[in-house]
């Protein structure tokens, strides 16, 4: 499937979502669900910080931009993987803002045929403007039927 799209879509902010303040209970419940036992992740107090993957629970209200190539808009995508660059840890009271962009869009041919990947990037900052994480979500579309 030949993929044609307007490259100006890449890097263009299409969503900005500010989340409610994080609570200590949320941080602890998340870490405990992963079987984490480190006191810095599961004990309330001034030393509590979020598990490193806590940030991936945040996303924008809108996951894809409205101007996604037409051939992809109505199709189901699969979560093919993620890349996270970590910055400041998430702490209780933090308000996380997620800015969403399409970071990349490419085709690949594998054993099961052609696939299209849309990499949706979430850039997350806290209320102090510190970078919390850059999360690249690789969403895969199988070749058109």
């Amino acid at each position, binding site marked *: 499937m030949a993929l044609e799209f307007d490259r100006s879509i890449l890097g263009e902010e299409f969503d900005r979502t500010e989340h409610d303040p994080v609570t200590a209970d949320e941080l602890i419940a998340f870490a405990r669900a992963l*079987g984490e036992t480190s006191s810095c992740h599961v004990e309330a107090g001034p030393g509590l910080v979020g598990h490193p993957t806590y940030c991936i629970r945040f996303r924008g209200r809108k996951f894809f931009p409205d101007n996604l190539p037409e051939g992809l808009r109505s199709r189901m995508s699969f979560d093919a993987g993620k890349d996270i660059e970590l910055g400041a840890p998430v702490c209780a009271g933090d308000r996380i803002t997620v800015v969403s962009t399409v970071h990349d869009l490419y085709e690949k041919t594998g054993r099961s045929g052609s696939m299209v990947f849309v990499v949706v990037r979430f850039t997350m900052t806290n209320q102090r403007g510190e970078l919390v994480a850059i999360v690249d979500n690789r969403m895969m579309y199988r070749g058109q039927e």
Partner: protein
Amino acid sequence: MHGRRFDEVHEGDELGPVAHYLSKDQVRAYARAVDHYYPRFTDDEGARREGLPGMITPGNMSMGLLATLVTGWAGPGRLRRLGTTFRGLVLPDRTIRLCGAVTQKDDATRAVELDVWIESDEGERLVIGTATVALP
């Protein structure tokens, strides 16, 4: 803060494998903690209605389990980057193995590169990835 020092680590060192029984209740607890309490992550019948073989583990949870493996080895606060590819369904109610290996050391930055993966009890690699940790 416990964990490893850069000088103690060598290319080829292994993380784990850690055998982990992934219960359905643990997956449900994760789904609840992230507000993704959807049938595919919480009940077999609901998941089958979506064409799945039964309830599955969220990809983000697999990533979290690998992060826990890495920070348990390196020490809290030392994970800088984690990238994963979801290759197969991680089904709960069975034992998985969390594995890793040191692939590269950078003396200048004291960063250590790792391969990490989750494999089934049968040895199939369901999630693969790489990670970077910074060690003192």
